[in-house]
């Protein structure tokens, strides 16, 4: 992979053209020649949106958070060394922005929870179709909400985004052994959340049955 500085130098920007060059490779982990910041946005906006959502940023603040990630990324481009995939770097920024957003969300008065309508059994029953998948996502997010920030980030990056422990280590700036430990703990915590949810479903079933989807 060419160095960022080299990439920058071959991407002489043009104010007239309005493109903003970046030292980056296109796509999540590709080595396609670098393009512009516009390309960086287009290539990664879905990734950033998805990651922030999974990190616990709820819909009302999601757009603002996505924008902040890209603005921070733009500002810090010169600190991106090109040693990792650009996506790995962006995950790190997204994780940090998400922490800030969640912290402020926690400071606000409790909003009505959507938890009442969520049922593990029905959600995990047939998640293949669109309705089932949407339900599954809601349940998943509710379960992820039960993890603390450290576990959630590692769990999401490993289990959903498919990063390796060394990649997560790079992304979050945390020692790789710590990542392994957190991942183990996160999986256990997630599983415990599933068990709690299963028990809750069972109680509701005894009371009057689960609603049909």
């Amino acid at each position, binding site marked *: 992979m060419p160095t960022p500085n080299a990439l*920058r130098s071959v991407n*002489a*920007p*043009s*104010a*007239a*053209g*309005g493109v*903003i*060059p970046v030292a980056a490779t296109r796509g999540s982990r590709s080595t396609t020649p670098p393009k512009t*910041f*516009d390309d960086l*946005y287009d290539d990664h*906006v*879905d990734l950033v949106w998805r990651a922030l959502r*999974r990190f616990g940023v709820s819909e*009302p*603040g999601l*757009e*603002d*958070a*996505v*924008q*902040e990630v*890209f*603005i*921070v990324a*733009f*500002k*810090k*481009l*010169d*600190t991106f060394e090109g040693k990792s995939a650009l996506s790995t*770097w962006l995950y790190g*920024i997204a994780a*940090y922005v998400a922490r*800030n*957003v969640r912290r*402020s*969300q926690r400071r606000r008065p409790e909003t009505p929870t959507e938890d009442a309508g969520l049922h*593990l*059994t029905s*959600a*995990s*029953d047939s*998640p*293949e179709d669109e309705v*089932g998948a*949407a339900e599954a*996502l809601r349940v*998943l997010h509710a*379960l992820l909400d039960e993890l603390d920030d450290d576990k959630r980030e590692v769990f999401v990056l490993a*289990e*959903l985004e*498919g990063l390796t422990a060394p990649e997560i280590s790079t992304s979050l700036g945390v020692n790789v052994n710590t990542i392994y430990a957190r991942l183990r703990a996160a*999986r256990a915590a997630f*599983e415990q959340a*599933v*068990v709690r949810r*299963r028990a809750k479903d069972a109680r509701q079933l005894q009371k009057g049955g689960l609603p049909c989807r």
Partner: protein
Amino acid sequence: MPMSPEAQALLKAARKHPDRPSDEARTRMRRNVMRAVSAGAGAVGATTAGTAAAQTLFAKIAGGALVVAALGGVVVGGRALFSSSESSVDPKNAPASTSTSTTVVGTSRETSEALGSTSTAANLDPTSDRVVASSALRTTATPSASSVASSPRIATAPSKPAEANITSDAASAPAVESVDVLKEEAALLASAQSALGKGQAARALELTNEHETRFPKGALSFERRAVHAMALCALGRGTEGRREAQAIVDRAPGTPLAERVSAACP
């Protein structure tokens, strides 16, 4: 530790059907981001010119076609925006090597200061206690913005004309065009601010009039009106000035901008 079947099913569903932004959201965010980073490029270019910090990306490319240092006007968004971003950036992941504020040289200083005051004045959002940004950066989803009022945000100034403008052409106007237009707009407003700061109120008035002619629905219309009002009052045209000033106060009561305008037009 093996995952339960339920957990596996949920994870599989999430991998297969991930959350995605709508096309409208993508477009809206893209526009806001590009506006913001364009302003930011100017800020960095201006503030690093001639300094030891010239090893940044933008300084490195300053010798090329991007002469953002000459376009100090865009600092209006950049400074404000970056003051927001820096407050929320993890130094570990994002070292503050592109720090924007203090080492400004030559004409950049003048422009930056002029615009800096605009930036400060643009910190209008009554619901936010920490974020500053140009009105050009405002997101169009007001409920969304207010719902994260205390979180790191990129947009605050309630410039309704600008907001309406952005909303109406968000899908059609290319970001590329908006970038250059915003730079020109910001530069012109910076000149007006600068003139006012030097006591050249008549010149400031000329420039705000020019701004209004060239950018009648510009992203910085609200800020321009404030400068216009202050220029009028400085010229002794208090009746007109106070009327303009009142409009600013009504629109953004209790904000620094409203206070400045009120002070200039007692």
